[in-house]
């Protein structure tokens, strides 16, 4: 029980988070003297296989027809079959929707323990300890997993990537056949972010909160501002629940976790649950009417003012500076 399994769903590609995850797997395997098996699921797994092979010993490819699109019960059964055979010490996943959905159930079926949203990982007397934010981002806890395998889904952006091995890993198709479960099946999927960069990959973000007051200023003020800054738009939970913008725009503890070079917070107070989604941002700036707003305790620079006055003027200045 020395090997490490890492599982990636092809939808995200071999992105920065996946690279960090691979780094953890590699270091953990070195610590226990085991190997890393990378299970890749979904159409597009083939492309990732080539990118990840230099960093692991074996790549198990699951891009067969019935695995092309994610089905929770099917993918879970397959992962259980593979891991029951490999008997790994730990199974690592990313923080995407599918991983979060399956990880606890995978742990249960293998009589192991799971924990999620890890930002740091250590080994203590053979047991895995994972650090994660709790209390809506206000505190930090270290959780020790008591059963094996240890299943952890991690914020890959918080970890260093792997180093290339001398020999590239072997790529093999998955031999196991997943058992179909007709009790629950995904029958329709809809992408609502066509043409836009993923918020998780955006380098500049302009985010609006309750203070924006409605859907229109997102379109008339924040969108043109974002265009001038080369930014993606995002929002707080309050703005999404009010129906002002799409739910996909939500950044925070239960929304997107972003890591931009610049995060400009407009009309948002900076509730800890929102800040939990921007802990990896390099620079945070804010426009808010309240000098005591919590956001100002978590930004590098900002302005106390009404965005309705500040943003039009800011757009003029940015246009002038670009000439």
């Amino acid at each position, binding site marked *: 029980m020395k090997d490490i399994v890492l599982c990636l769903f092809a939808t995200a590609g071999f992105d920065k988070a996946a690279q960090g995850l691979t780094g953890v797997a590699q270091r953990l395997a070195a610590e226990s003297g085991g190997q890393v098996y990378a299970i890749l699921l979904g159409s597009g797994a083939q492309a990732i296989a080539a990118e990840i092979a230099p960093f692991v010993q074996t790549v198990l490819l699951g891009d067969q027809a019935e695995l092309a699109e994610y089905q929770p019960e099917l993918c879970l059964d397959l992962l259980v079959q593979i891991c029951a055979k490999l008997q790994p010490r730990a199974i690592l996943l990313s923080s995407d929707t599918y991983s979060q959905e399956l990880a606890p159930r995978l742990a249960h079926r293998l009589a192991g323990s799971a924990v999620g949203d890890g930002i740091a990982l250590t080994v203590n007397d053979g047991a895995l300890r994972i650090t994660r934010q709790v209390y809506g981002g*206000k505190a930090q806890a270290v959780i020790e997993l008591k059963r094996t395998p240890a299943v952890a889904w991690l914020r890959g952006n918080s970890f260093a990537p792997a180093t290339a091995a001398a020999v590239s890993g072997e790529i093999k198709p998955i031999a196991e056949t997943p058992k179909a479960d007709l009790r629950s099946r995904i029958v329709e999927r809809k992408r609502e972010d066509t043409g836009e960069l993923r918020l998780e990959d955006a380098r500049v973000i302009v985010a609006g909160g309750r203070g924006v007051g409605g859907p229109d200023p997102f379109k008339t003020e924040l969108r043109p501002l974002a265009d001038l800054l080369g930014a993606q738009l995002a929002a707080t939970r309050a703005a999404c629940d009010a129906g002002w913008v799409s739910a996909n725009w939500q950044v925070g503890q239960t929304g997107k976790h972003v890591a931009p070079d610049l995060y400009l917070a407009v009309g948002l107070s900076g509730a800890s649950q929102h800040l939990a989604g921007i802990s990896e941002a390099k620079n945070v700036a804010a426009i808010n009417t309240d000098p005591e707003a919590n956001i100002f305790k978590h930004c590098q620079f900002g302005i106390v003012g009404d965005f309705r006055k500040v943003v039009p003027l800011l757009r003029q200045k940015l246009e002038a500076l670009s000439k």
Partner: protein
Amino acid sequence: MNILVCMKQIIDPEVPVRDFRIDPVKRQAERGSANLVPNIFCENALETALKLRDLIGSSKITVLSYGAATAEESLRKALAMKADAAALVVNDGNPNPDPLTVARVLAAAAQKLGGFDLILLGREAGDWGSGQTGGLLAEELGLPCIAFADNVAAVDGKLRVRRQTEWGWELSEAVPPIVITITNCEANVPRLPKVRDVMMSYRQPLTKWTVDDLGIDAAAARAGDAYYEVTELSIPQKESVCDFVTGETLDEQVEMLARRLTAITGAL
């Protein structure tokens, strides 16, 4: 349809950061003067059940908690929102049991309460936020599970469940019984109970058990740490001092803001 909504009562997560305190020895937050409230995602789940009942009629909604005796208040609120029945398994052991412990207690209580077609939970709790209780409960009951749902409809005895993903949504067709975890959306903001209904809710029956009543390993349940254990709790010191832009006029201040922003974006 027989619907079970599992709910957790937590310390109000809207407590401002400056008032938030923890006990590093007990490894939990200090309540201080904060209120205890139902977890918002659990209320989103209850609202989902209520809306489903509004849609299909002839359904019974039961709410269930595993928590301290104070959790009764949150269950009474659920009754005031027109849930039909409520049950509380009083936790007299580890106040922060691991998610498998919670799942085992909820599974046993659910079986004792009778058969359910649909079991709803919030996607995670606003305090510890493990995000695992729903999935583990599904496994304990041998049921399929859909996570992060924001819409549940019933058509011809089947459930049509929409759930959010990073890039949009997915729609599933499911045959009951099933466990579904709920995330927030515009349509499941919880309704406000009438004050009169909250008062009346205290006249309704509320089943109370302890882990001894459930036919499970009570000692393990009270210990609540065989799956995982919190070894450390701390508040990271990470505050920065905001460099507010200066200038006598708004124009000067915004000019400075523009320059500071482009200093970063220009270098990308």
